[in-house]
């Protein structure tokens, strides 16, 4: 064993098959001590499988070489991986919500085969030392459930350090953080890196990958595409490496749309959610709405569709003032709402593709007797599957069996079936692969061209900049800026949103 190994982790010739499916083929992956590395790729490219092999959850096919800190490992188990200093922080963090900060951080010290008496007090000095090393202050006795996500992540990191981690994997760590929280996380990662702890980010958020890491390993369909320095890499190029598609990131805005208004909101407010919001969407116009998480965007959408009641202000639809008491009213008046939470609000996951498509339009598939007509239902389902090119096996399959991109097309289908005049898209590409996103936006653009008004809400500044005719920025419940993609650059918009 060498004293100062060149690699903290080195993998070669790793393959893994599940039944007949090749999850990984001949992949190698190396991380230097103290390096901040990114493992990037679309959903299903093999990122998770690779981590699970490194941490001993899966056994790779014969021929794989695994070397940790200069030591050849024949057979890795989860316990051995942890002992060798490899730690994974999964997206859900795997913390215990009702236990205190100190208990969570020292958790791995107290579990074992034999039961033993646990005195958290004895661990507190060590826990304090680790938090000090990270330059953070925290109340050790506070239960985890009372902490914001960003703080919980720090607890998870501290827990990994408690086990003397040399290499920490972080699975999509920033997906639920605001920019300032992300910045704090970055500072901590920087600190770890200076201490010689390597950090591997697993992410498909392109901007982030480029901002935080020095090297990026790209996987695609279980193959290694390559290892690239992030310097000089652009988002577009990285997306192309991940998808093998040539992506055109062009501003699609149409200048000077001069049609009648569909939606006019004036001074709309709802206590503690948003204040004095005024906005106007014309026929065929795509209006982007961005801002940090918690800025009040989804809350505004909920008030527009009648899920909540605004405290003051007016909503006019097609020139007529409306006052919805339920989402059904909104649907009847021609508003469609694509929720950001496709898993629990957008679709009824266990039910069939066909049933999901017709949930919004039951009245249109009845016979003259008032019964559901199987024939009308089938016609409608087939029409939308074809129209939106949804890739499915049978329309009777559960919608949960589809990929994120295809599920989102089913969501679009069920709303388009209502023939809306205004469509509200709330983070429409959450959990949708980069390659499939373009397809979704092509559909959205063509809907606008047919005269539909569209409110595109998104966290991703790039998404609204490239796909909207104009962009509104929301901060702390107020719309305070309008951005014109044709006149200003995406960087300008970024600096405004993240200011």
């Amino acid at each position, binding site marked *: 064993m060498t004293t100062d190994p060149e690699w903290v982790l080195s993998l070669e010739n790793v393959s893994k098959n599940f*039944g007949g499916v090749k999850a990984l083929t001949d992949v190698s992956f190396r991380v230097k001590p103290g390096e901040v590395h990114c493992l990037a790729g679309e959903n299903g490219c093999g990122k998770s499988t690779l981590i699970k092999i490194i941490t001993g959850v899966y056994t790779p096919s014969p021929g794989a070489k695994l070397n940790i800190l200069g030591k050849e490992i024949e057979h890795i188990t989860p316990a051995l991986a942890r002992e060798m200093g490899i730690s994974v922080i999964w997206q859900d963090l795997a913390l215990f919500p009702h236990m205190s900060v100190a208990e969570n951080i020292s958790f791995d010290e107290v579990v074992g085969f034999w039961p033993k008496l646990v005195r958290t007090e004895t661990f507190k000095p060590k826990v304090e030392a680790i938090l000090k090393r990270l330059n953070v202050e925290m109340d050790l006795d506070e239960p985890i459930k009372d902490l914001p996500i960003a703080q919980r992540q720090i607890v998870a990191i501290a827990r990994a350090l408690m086990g003397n981690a040399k290499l920490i994997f972080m699975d999509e760590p920033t997906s639920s953080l605001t920019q300032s929280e992300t910045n704090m996380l970055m500072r901590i990662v920087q600190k770890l890196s200076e201490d010689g702890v390597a950090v591997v980010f697993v992410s498909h958020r392109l901007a982030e990958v480029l901002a935080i890491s020095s090297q990026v390993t790209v996987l695609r369909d279980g193959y290694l595409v390559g290892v690239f320095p992030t310097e000089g890499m652009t988002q577009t190029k990285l997306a192309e490496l991940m998808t093998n598609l040539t992506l055109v990131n062009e501003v699609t805005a149409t200048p000077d749309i001069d049609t009648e208004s569909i939606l006019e909101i004036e001074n709309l407010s709802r206590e503690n959610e948003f204040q004095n919001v005024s906005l106007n969407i014309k026929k065929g116009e795509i209006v982007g709405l961005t801002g940090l998480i918690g800025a009040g965007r989804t809350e505004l959408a909920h008030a527009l569709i009648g*899920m909540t009641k605004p405290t003051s202000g007016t909503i006019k639809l097609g020139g007529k003032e409306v006052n919805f008491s339920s*989402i*059904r009213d909104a*649907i009847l008046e021609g508003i469609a*709402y694509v*929720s950001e939470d496709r898993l*629990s*609000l*957008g*679709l*009824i*996951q*266990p*039910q069939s593709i066909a*049933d999901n498509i017709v*949930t*919004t339009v*039951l*009245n249109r598939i*009845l016979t003259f007797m*008032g*019964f*559901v007509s*199987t024939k009308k239902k089938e016609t409608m389902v087939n029409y939308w599957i074809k129209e939106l090119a949804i890739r499915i096996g049978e329309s009777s399959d559960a919608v949960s069996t589809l990929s994120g991109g295809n599920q989102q097309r089913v969501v679009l289908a*069920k709303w388009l079936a*209502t023939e809306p005049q205004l469509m509200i898209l709330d983070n429409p590409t959450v959990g949708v692969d980069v390659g499939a996103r373009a397809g979704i936006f092509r559909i959205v653009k063509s809907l606008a061209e047919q005269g539909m008004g569209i409110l595109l809400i998104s966290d991703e500044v790039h998404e609204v900049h490239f796909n909207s005719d104009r962009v509104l920025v929301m901060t702390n419940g107020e719309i305070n800026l309008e951005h014109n993609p044709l006149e200003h650059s995406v960087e300008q918009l970024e600096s405004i949103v993240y200011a």
Partner: protein
Amino acid sequence: MRQIVQNISDQIGKETFALICFLAFLFLTFSSLTPRFLTAANLSSMAFQLPVLGILTLAMLAPILSGGLNLAIIFTANLSGLTLAWTLLQAGGPDAGIFAFVIGVAAALAVGAAAGLVMGLAVAYTGAHPILVSLAMMIFLRGLGEFLTRGGDISGFPEFVGTIGHGSLFLIPIPMIIFTLVALAWHIMLVSTKHGFSVYMIGSNLNASEYSGIPTKKTLTLIYTFSGVLCGIAGILMVSRFNSVRVGHGEALLLVTVLACFLGGIDPFGGFGKVMPVVIALIILQVLSSGLNLLGANQHLSTAVWGLFLILVMVIRHVVNQLRNYLARRE
């Protein structure tokens, strides 16, 4: 031959097909063990016994499909029966006319519907768990019934009431005719009405259904109201079969209705299940109990066999699923 079996199985669903096969197996076994099984007398006695349990099971079905449960079915039925009995007694007991009976039936159905409506409103608008709501309703109805009857039996009805419970039309027992009509109506409601569609969607995900514009509150209210109406029908049938009403009568059937639903392949978490397999499951339970009875087994033993049987079905389902997954993976 294999193709034919495959076709039938595809047509009616694997689950139903398996249940029918098992039913046939039971028929063959019992008729070979005792010559009294396959007789007109036994078949007709089964057809008289099944409907009360059957209608109560259907009353349990829709709440379970919507992800809930209705624990108040038996006492709702009792109270409905009590309403009918009271009306008949007011109109002269054994001398009551057909008109009083019709009024009584309407009142009984209304009482059932009202009990269901209250539960439905509570479930829909307060978001309270259906188990708690229906449990509270069950205790209320039971207490109310026992208070009104002082725990005693009420009897003394006109003779024609008995014909509904014991008579036949074209050789088919009248209770069986009623059950068949109810089951058919239930099947149509679940499979081809907006309400039925909404029941399944709500059972899988209430919030997503609301976001899709399904009137979830109205649907939940209706589910329990309809369930109450079915309890009313069961209660009327019980009056005419036993010629008396006692609060608590049929209490043991409550859990059997749940059992029959799960045996018929209803997803305990809601969202999936059909009327047809549940009806077959009911027939299986009836055949088991009548067959064992003819073989001289104790009635309590046949209850035990029902329980064992359900455990067996769970194990078989698990094994079949494992096997199917294994085969799918090998492909």
